[in-house]
């Protein structure tokens, strides 16, 4: 029922759709994206549920206010009922009813927190380190040894300078593209370990429903599992003010099939072995 109404909401948004095709972000431009993971869809469903509950309350409360504004006007000869100053019964009702509504929202919310915090049985772990202003991705588990930095792509970097004279609309995925995206397999539970080497950053991909701070001295965890068949490029940004170039450290994730992912990992290892620098870089960062 709610999902149906939600999709009506989403469908009507299609009329507004502008430039959304420029990125794989599945947001319609004015609502959360449903996303491509079980968590992001659960978050979207809960978001719409709470939204419609709020709309329902708003209809009742604003309805009563607007009715008062129209009906009880002095200019229409309304006589004030000055005896109406207190009613214990009514006040108890409008204390209890909101409590019930809040419990209705809190129970599924607590259930979803349990799912979000369940880090067990991940198939791939990647350490994500925030720097001013780039991300470092260090793979562990099956892809152990793959390690690289991810920074804003050059064309965006040229266009974003003060008075660059370059029209941002002419740059593909302006501010949302990097030189080397994070590459992950679909259908695998990916666990990220987040930390930072300088200030607090936050790693965020809306379509995965995954956002968590990267804090120096701490290791935070999140997980996501992109549905098989939803391979593609997904984009997000640093979500915690991290200094001058906070707006210029995008997060880009390239989701591939497990087979393609394995090929990519092998290619990375072969390339690294060819240069002969694989070991020093990775052993230092290995958390195991």
């Amino acid at each position: 029922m709610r999902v149906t109404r939600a999709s009506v909401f989403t469908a009507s948004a299609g009329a507004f759709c502008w430039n959304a095709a420029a990125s794989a972000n599945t947001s319609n431009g004015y609502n959360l994206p449903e996303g491509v993971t079980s968590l992001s869809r659960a978050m979207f469903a809960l978001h719409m549920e709470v939204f419609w509950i709020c709309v329902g309350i708003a209809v009742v409360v604003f309805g009563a206010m607007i009715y008062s504004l129209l009906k009880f006007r002095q200019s229409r000869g309304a006589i004030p009922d000055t005896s109406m100053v207190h009613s214990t019964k009514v006040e108890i009702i409008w204390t209890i009813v909101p409590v019930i509504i809040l419990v209705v929202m809190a129970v599924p919310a607590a259930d979803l927190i349990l799912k979000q915090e369940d880090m067990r049985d991940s198939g791939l772990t990647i350490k994500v380190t925030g720097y001013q202003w780039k991300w470092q991705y260090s793979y562990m588990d099956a892809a152990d040894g793959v390690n690289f930095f991810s920074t804003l792509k050059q064309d965006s970097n040229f266009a974003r300078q003060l008075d660059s004279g370059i029209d941002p609309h002419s740059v593909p995925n302006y501010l949302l593209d990097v030189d080397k995206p994070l590459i992950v397999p679909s259908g695998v539970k990916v666990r990220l370990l987040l930390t930072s080497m300088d200030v607090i950053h936050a790693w965020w991909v809306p379509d995965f429903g995954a956002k968590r701070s990267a804090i120096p001295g701490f290791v935070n965890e999140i997980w996501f599992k992109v549905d098989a068949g939803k391979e593609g490029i997904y984009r997000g940004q640093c979500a915690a003010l991290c200094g001058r170039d906070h707006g210029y450290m995008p997060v880009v994730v390239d989701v591939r099939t497990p087979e393609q992912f394995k090929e990519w990992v092998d290619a990375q290892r072969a390339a690294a072995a060819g240069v002969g620098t694989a070991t020093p870089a990775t052993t230092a960062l290995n958390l195991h």
Partner: protein
Amino acid sequence: MAHDHAADTAHHDDHHDQPPSGIGRWLFATNHKDIGTMYLVFSLIMFFIGGAMAMVIRAELFKPGLQLVDPGFFNQMTTMHALVMIFGAVMPAFVGLANWMIPLQIGAPDMALPRMNNFSFWIMPFAFTILLSSLFVPGGAPAGGWTMYPPLFLQGGNYVAMAIFAVHLMGASSIMGSINVIVTIMNMRAPGMNLLKMPLFCWSWLITAYLLIAVMPVLAGAVTMLLTDHYFGTSFFNAAGGGDPLMFEHVFWFFGHPEVYIMILPAFGIISEILPTFSRKPLFGATSMIYAIASIAFLSFIVWGHHMFVDGMPLAAQVFFMMSTMLIAVPTGVKVFNWTATMWRGSLSFEPPMLFALAFLFLFTIGGFSGVMLAIVPVDFQYNQTYFVVAHFHYVLVPGAVFAIMAAVYYWLPKWTGNMYSTRLAQTHFWLSTIFVNVLFFPQHFLGLAGMPRRIPDYAVQFSDWNMVSSIGAFGFGLSQLLFVVVIIQCARGGKQKVSAEVWDGAAPTGLEWTIPSPAPYHSFTVAPEIK
């Protein structure tokens, strides 16, 4: 005005019933009305300085790409806009209203501690001179956000010491102001005015004052630790030295959340004064309104974690802070329902203060709804640090706190000056403000949900349209506020006509402030009124 008590209280002659002349009247002011006026004028100036910074922000965000300022200066603007608006505009405005109205509402001749009152005001211009002058030192003004999170804040240059010293001064000023409010209310109420007979505005301020005394020292402690980390080699928040950057966030938000209510509880008090007057009907459930304010104040101490869900928190803490935060909706709901019930079966008229109070009622409630959504932890991960949060807190602060302050000014300005302002201009100010404030902030909900992070100087092109709409709203809202100044200056200079003691005699104003002449005499209630 002076004549009715001058005759029988001859020993009051040395008190000067007329204000002293010249600059000395303001520098050495001990009169609660003069100090209240200075607070309000100071707040208005800061409102325009902070507003000018907001205009820079919205002008840069008008379209994608960087056209006007570099990212570093943009961050200075967002940071300073918040600090100036919170500590310079909203809080001093409420203190100014408290100074003016608390003695008048409880039948006291003045605030209890007039010299401390002078001191607490005159600290403020110095604090803000220091803060604002950091814009001109090497490295510029604070740029790490008003929350001053380390390690980012500590990367700064000279501003670190300047901002921290300014915050210390503001805190000292707030604490002194609060002590004054509490002592005045506890000791100087007219005979017969027990606490439950006290007007709601005084009640909301009494509770706010306790909140201020509780949390301002916490902020002072937090920023002092920043200071020693930066200059004296300590490692309170430095992970490399065994410190904990998250601890700052905990300490800061233990101050920060009550601070949020410090900026809204007096607004609740103001709305509870204005709605009954122009509904011609007593406030519905006045006692439960007081309990609701007290409950909100209590809850404000146990919800700070909801600012930090994204920073990683144990499961139990996430659930606890979600529940406690949602619980705030209950007393807040009681207030909104009671205000609605106050209008129900009333006889409403729509003078400017009532218009602003009604806009508050609707738009603050919208901010309440987005607040409930933000409390839902698992979805907060999507909302947090986006423009959805920006939309939420601006809805509760601008059409919430700021509209309540404007409602209060339009309500009591005739009492202060003895003149009625141009209601036509005030109505124009109201309609322009209300339309533009929604054009400004409502699209920011969409931007946040669509994935635009806050505090960025430039954005991906799919966010262009709503940003342009929002910026147009901002320019319109900013320009509309010039009308507010015109209305106030016209009124202070003589206005449309003289008003009676009751001012709103067509409506049903209650309270002692309406029993004294307009303008309120320089010394009011030298003989305490009797409350039946």
